[in-house]
């Protein structure tokens, strides 16, 4: 087996290294630029699977319930996540509406489903061509999912509206906060190197 001598390159600077198995919980760093090369986390798959399933439930809740409500002199207005994405549409800016719907609904959902498929593929040793395809595009689209940026936008809007009218913070606001936390935790736990290595093996 050549596995212990498998050459790998640093993702940041391209420096070549030799792969060698790590003790559980340890991390390998690049000798030139210090970037993380790979990690050994024994229960990575199970934790990520649990977080992703929780994330999918929170995603549904976030989209079903209203995010914010506003009461002004007897009139009431509610805003769902989809409504916020499409607000620009009604204003005559379909491109912007499209961009926002990608940022806060499509890409986050795509990421959750991809991680689910990838983890299940590795765990049950399925054929990995679908998982490889999805994981590749997920890595490319990652910066375009902007849940946490949107959350900051919600907070700014809440303070701005605070003295204008009575504001109701909806159920989706809290599930949205939970969704951001679970997705951040899943991203922090998932080691791309280990995933690619596992997917590459199932393929051949």
């Amino acid at each position, binding site marked *: 087996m050549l596995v212990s001598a498998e050459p790998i390159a640093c993702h940041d600077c391209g420096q070549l290294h030799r792969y060698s198995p790590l003790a559980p919980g340890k991390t390998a760093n690049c000798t030139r630029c210090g970037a993380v090369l790979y990690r050994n986390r024994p229960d990575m798959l199970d934790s990520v699977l649990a977080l992703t399933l929780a994330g999918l439930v929170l995603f549904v809740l976030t989209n079903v319930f209203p995010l914010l409500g506003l009461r002004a002199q007897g009139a009431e207005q509610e805003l769902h996540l989809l409504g916020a994405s499409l607000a620009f549409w009604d204003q005559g800016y379909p491109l*912007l509406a499209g961009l926002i719907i990608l940022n806060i609904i499509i890409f986050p959902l795509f990421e959750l489903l991809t991680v689910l498929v990838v983890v299940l593929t590795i765990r049950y040793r399925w054929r990995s061509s679908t998982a490889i395809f999805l994981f590749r595009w997920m890595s490319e689209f990652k910066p375009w999912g902007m849940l946490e940026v949107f959350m900051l*936008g919600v907070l700014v809007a809440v303070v701005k509206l605070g003295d204008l009218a009575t504001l109701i913070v909806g159920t989706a606001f809290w599930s949205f906060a939970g969704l951001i936390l679970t997705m951040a935790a899943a991203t922090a736990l998932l080691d791309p190197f280990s995933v690619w290595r596992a997917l590459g093996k199932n393929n051949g």
Partner: protein
Amino acid sequence: MAEHDALLQCRVCGCLSHASTQLKRFEVMHCPRCGARVKLAQQSNSVEVTWALLIAAAILYIPANMLPIMSVYMLGAGQPDTIITGAYHLLEAGQWPLALIVFVASIVVPLLKLFTLSFLLISIQRRSRWRQHDRMRLYRITEYVGRWSMVDVFVIAILTGLVQFGNLARVDANLGSLSFAAVVVLTMFAARTLDEHLIWDITRQEESHT
């Protein structure tokens, strides 16, 4: 190490593969593991594409700041706000933390991105060996921070979606928001197309010659 010449690294999955020696100028190779396109170093047009995106973003930065981004109407009266007057109104209302968030995310970050990416491109073109670690860090920060500029676009979306009470109170989006979003998108694409490995290329070439 001689292996640098023979091995190509996939930018998506990190897989190393051997370059076929007969690869012609416009021929592309696909990564054997993930199928993404792998370009040879001498085929890379990353510098030119990044410059084009940056220049487009710099041009759009002007209307993004001059044109109003949204209008707030209260009891029929109201005025359009540009990014800077919006931040100023927040400051006037005593909400300086919010004014700071809007100012940093919408004005400082896009401007810094335009400058740092231009600086990195110039240093790459001059084949500079100056502080490669720091330039790499600068690139990573720029790439990460860029998406936060979208916060103002999201605020406008939330306000226009929520505040629609006819003549009583109403928030409308204006053309400036479109230019501003275009600046954010273009600078994000610019950061993605800039091949950060070019920062290290000069050292790598020297290492392989010794």
